[in-house]
C-alpha cells in the first residue's frame, strides 16, 4: 500500500487509458510549462534593466537544459524502479516510455508532465544568484542540481522512495519543488556572495508590471501544477484546483494588510509576492485539505514569509529575489500545515486537527530531510564547480550589466549609434563610423 494519491494512481494501475484523464493531463502539462516563462517575467521585472534579459534567460534556459536532461536520464532516476534512494536506468533515453498507460494516462505524457516540474524547480533557484552569476556556470549548476538533488528527492517522495513510504504527504511538490529550491537558493546566495551594490545602494525593480504579469501567469499555470498532480480528471483534481484558487486569495489579503500596517501602503510588488507565497504554501496540501482550511492555510502562510523577507533585507545574505523567504519558508509552512489540516473526507488522510498528530511529525521529517540534503548537496556542487570555473562575473562586468556581457543584447535599446555589420564583415554604406574615433585613439 502507498500513502500518496499520486503513487496510488501510478501503482494501482488500472490497465486502461482514461480519455478524460488524458485530456486534463495534456492541458495541465501545458499549463505547468507556462509557469517557467511566467517566472521569467516575475524575476525579470524585479531586477535592474541592465540585467533583465539575463535574469529571464536563467529561467528560459532551464526549458532546454533541464527539459532535455529530464528526457535523457533524470526522469529515469526519479521514476524508474530502483532502490528506496534512487530510481534506476530502466527509462534512460526514454526507453519504455511509450503510449501504454501509466496510471490512466499515457506513460509518455506522465514523463512530460513531471518534466515541467523539474524545469521550474531548477529555474526557481536562479532568483538567488541573479545580476552576478555567469551564465555558463549557471547552466552547468542547474544540470548537476537536477541530477543530484531534484531527481533523488522526487524519487523519495513520488517515485516509490523512502519518504513516500514513510507517509510524507506532498500533493504537488511543497517538499520536492519548493523547499528543495528554497534552501538551495539560500546556500547558492551564500556561496556566491552578494551583488557588488547589495546593501550599499538601493537596487530597485525595473518593471513592476512585469512582476504582476508574472505572478498572474504563475497562478494560472499553478492550476495545472496542483490540479494536475491528481494525475486524473477526478474529485481530487477539483479539490486541489479550488484550494489553489482560494489559498493565494487569503495570502494576498493578509499580505496587503501587513504591508499597509508596516509601510502605510498596499504595494504591487508585495501583492505579487503574496500571491506566489500562497501558491507555494498550498502546493503540498492542495488535494488533502478542505477549501475552508485552504483559506486558513493561505492566511497563515503570509506571516512567516513576510517577516522572512523583512529580516533578510537587513542581513548581508543577498538572496536577491527572496527565493528562500518565498519558496523555502512558504514550502516549510505549507508542508507542516498539510499535517495539521489534512482531512480524510477530502484527501484520504487525517492530520493534527482530525486527531492524527503523528502526521505532523512525519511532515517535519520530510521537511528536515529535504532541507538538509538539498542544502548540503547544493553547497558541494557549487564548491566543486567554483573550483573549475569562476562562478561570478568580474566586478567591472557586473557594473556594465549581465545582458551585454553574457548575451550581447540589451532589453531596451534605442539602436542609436548602432552600425550594421554586413555578412562580409564590412559596415553598411553611410554608416556613422567615421564620426567615431577609432578604438583606443582617444581616452
Amino acid at each position, binding site marked *: 500500500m502507498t500513502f500518496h494519491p499520486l503513487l496510488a494512481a501510478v501503482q494501482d494501475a488500472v490497465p486502461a487509458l482514461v480519455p478524460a484523464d488524458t485530456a486534463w493531463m495534456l492541458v495541465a502539462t501545458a499549463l505547468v510549462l507556462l509557469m517557467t516563462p511566467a517566472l521569467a517575467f516575475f524575476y525579470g521585472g524585479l531586477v535592474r534593466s541592465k540585467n533583465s534579459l539575463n535574469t529571464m534567460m536563467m529561467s528560459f534556459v532551464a526549458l532546454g537544459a533541464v527539459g532535455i536532461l529530464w528526457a535523457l536520464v533524470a526522469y529515469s532516476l526519479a521514476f524508474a524502479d530502483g532502490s528506496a534512494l534512487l530510481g534506476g536506468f530502466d527509462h534512460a533515453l526514454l526507453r519504455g516510455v511509450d503510449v501504454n498507460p501509466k496510471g490512466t494516462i499515457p506513460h509518455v505524457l506522465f514523463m512530460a508532465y513531471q518534466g515541467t516540474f523539474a524545469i521550474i524547480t531548477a529555474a526557481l533557484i536562479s532568483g538567488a544568484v541573479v545580476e552576478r552569476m555567469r551564465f555558463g556556470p549557471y547552466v552547468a549548476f542547474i544540470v548537476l542540481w537536477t541530477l543530484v538533488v531534484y531527481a533523488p528527492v522526487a524519487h523519495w517522495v513520488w517515485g516509490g522512495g523512502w519518504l513516500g513510504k514513510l507517509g510524507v504527504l506532498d500533493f504537488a511538490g511543497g517538499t520536492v519543488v519548493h523547499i528543495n529550491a528554497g534552501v538551495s537558493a539560500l546556500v547558492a546566495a551564500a556561496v556566491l556572495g552578494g551583488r557588488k551594490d547589495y546593501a550599499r545602494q538601493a537596487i530597485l525593480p525595473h518593471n513592476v508590471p512585469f512582476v504582476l504579469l508574472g505572478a498572474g501567469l504563475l497562478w494560472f499555470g499553478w492550476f495545472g501544477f496542483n490540479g494536475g498532480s491528481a494525475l486524473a480528471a477526478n474529485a481530487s483534481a477539483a479539490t486541489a484546483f479550488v484550494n489553489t484558487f482560494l489559498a493565494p486569495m487569503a495570502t494576498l489579503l493578509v499580505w496587503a494588510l501587513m504591508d499597509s500596517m508596516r509601510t502605510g501602503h498596499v504595494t504591487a510588488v508585495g501583492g505579487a509576492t503574496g500571491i506566489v507565497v500562497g501558491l507555494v504554501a498550498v502546493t503540498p496540501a492542495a488535494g488533502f485539505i478542505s477549501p475552508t482550511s485552504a483559506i486558513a492555510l493561505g492566511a497563515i502562510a503570509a506571516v512567516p514569509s513576510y517577516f522572512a523577507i523583512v529580516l533578510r533585507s537587513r542581513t548581508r545574505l543577498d538572496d536577491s529575489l527572496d527565493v528562500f523567504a518565498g519558496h523555502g519558508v512558504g514550502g516549510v509552512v505549507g508542508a507542516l500545515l498539510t499535517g495539521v489540516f489534512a482531512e480524510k473526507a477530502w484527501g484520504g488522510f487525517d492530520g493534527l486537527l482530525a486527531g492524527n498528530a503523528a502526521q505532523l511529525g512525519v511532515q517535519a521529517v520530510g521537511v528536515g530531510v529535504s532541507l538538509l540534503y538539498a542544502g548540503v548537496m547544493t553547497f558541494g556542487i557549487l564548491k566543486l564547480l567554483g573550483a573549475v570555473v569562476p562562478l561570478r562575473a568580474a566586478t567591472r562586468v557586473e557594473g*556594465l550589466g549581465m545582458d*551585454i556581457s553574457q548575451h550581447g543584447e540589451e532589453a531596451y*535599446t534605442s539602436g542609436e*549609434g548602432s552600425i*550594421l555589420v554586413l555578412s562580409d564583415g564590412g*559596415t553598411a554604406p553611410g554608416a556613422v563610423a567615421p564620426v*567615431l*574615433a577609432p*578604438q*583606443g585613439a582617444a581616452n
Partner: protein
Amino acid sequence: MKLIIAVIRPDKLNDVLEALYRSEVRGLTVSRVMGHGGETERVENYRGTTVKMGLQEKVRLEIGVSESFVDITVRAIVRSARTGEVGDGKVFVLDVGQVHRIRSGERDEAAVTPALPVEA
C-alpha cells in the same frame, strides 16, 4: 563661479553622487545621454542582424559651483568615477556669465554651492 559638466559611466553615478555629497557639494542636474569615448565597440546580435554599438550610455552631470568649490568638485568626480578602463568619461569646467536662483532672486556666487542653509 564655474559650471562643471561631467560625463560618466551610468554604473558609477551612485559612487559620484556619494562623493559629491561627502564633499558637501549641493545641487546638480543629471541627464542620461549617449556618447563615445574611444572604447571598444560592442558587438550585439539580434537574430540575423549583427550591429556594432558605437554609442554607449553615459550620464551627464551639470553642477554650478563657486570658485572655492571647483577643485573639490572636480577631485570628487574624478576619484569616484574612475575605473581605469577606456570610457570613464570627462570633466569640463566652464566659465559662467551669470547664475540666478529662481526661488530667492539671489545671483552669482550666492546662488551656487555653497548655499546658506535654508530654514524650513
